[in-house]
């Protein structure tokens, strides 16, 4: 069972820890949480010295996969997004603030915009995400012909129903 990482985040509720992407000396520094609707949130711990502090952003699987595969930096997920800033003083309670990324004081952001560089250790998690977000580049004559830039999100139930009835499917 996933561990509870954050409770009662306004607008998000309970967040459970799904996967640690990078930890240092037992401290999860970059990790993924999920809410009760299985939405994913990318979290960065950017202070363990003065207090505990985290930046959290809701993230879709496509963007998360790009970060896991070092195609984008970790901070790229936060740009132009609504970010949840969480702070906790030693032994204190969690405090939450919602801020647009562009309004965050640069001193509150990670020192460097770096790549995760952990993909060799995260192959199982990457495969799990890929199974949930199947990316095909194909041609078909289905009734529901909805493509996003040549890719189709097969996690939507009605797409799966449509494809199950057809035999024309070419994987990229």
């Amino acid at each position, binding site marked *: 069972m996933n561990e509870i990482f954050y409770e009662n985040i306004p607008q998000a509720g309970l967040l459970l820890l799904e996967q640690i992407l*990078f*930890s*240092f*000396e*037992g401290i*999860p*520094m*970059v990790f993924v949480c999920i809410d009760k609707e299985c939405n994913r949130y990318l979290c*960065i*711990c*950017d*202070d*363990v*010295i*003065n207090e*505990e*502090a985290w930046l959290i952003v809701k993230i879709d699987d496509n963007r998360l996969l790009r970060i896991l595969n070092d195609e984008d930096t*970790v901070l790229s997920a936060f740009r132009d997004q609504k970010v949840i800033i969480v702070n906790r003083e*030693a*032994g204190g309670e969690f405090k939450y603030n919602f801020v647009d990324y562009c309004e965050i*004081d*640069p*001193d*509150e*952001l*990670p*020192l*460097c915009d*770096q790549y995760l*560089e*952990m993909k060799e*250790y995260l192959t199982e998690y990457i495969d799990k995400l890929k199974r949930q977000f199947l990316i095909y580049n194909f041609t078909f004559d289905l009734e529901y012909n909805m493509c996003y830039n040549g890719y189709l999100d097969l996690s939507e139930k009605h797409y799966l129903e449509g494809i199950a009835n057809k035999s024309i499917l070419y994987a990229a």
Partner: protein
Amino acid sequence: MKKVNKLSTCIPPDLVEEIIRNGREQDDQHVYRVAKRGKIDNVEFMGSYEETLYEKRTFKEDLSLIGSYSTSCYLTPKGPRKFLRFLKAGLFKTYPHPIIIHGNTICGLSQLTKERIPDYPDKEHVDWWIYQDSFDKLIKEFKVFEDFNQKGLTNE
């Protein structure tokens, strides 16, 4: 003969035996470590569990594992650098701020974590269980390796 009674008092006695079985004295092993408070003092050589208590954080690791009581260090500065770069830039505006220090794993027992845990995700992580009353020697042994400035660049 290994020194049985000189490891940290916060380590449960049954785990002391396990540490002695796994660790060995490696005085010529060169390692890197993050000094979070920017100083080379006793606090910066605390084991993970002890440090968590000192910082009043919640310890999330398994207390039945010997790694929870070690002082973490690394064979290269790569891991420490990555950690520092995720910390907020403002932490590097004031002095002292987190730095990377280096030295040899004297005065204790150490083990490459991957020897004990083959699928441990960091192949450069070393567990170092430091003998009690050794900190004066460690403070002399370790030196500053890298000092990040606010832009993430080193001052070396």
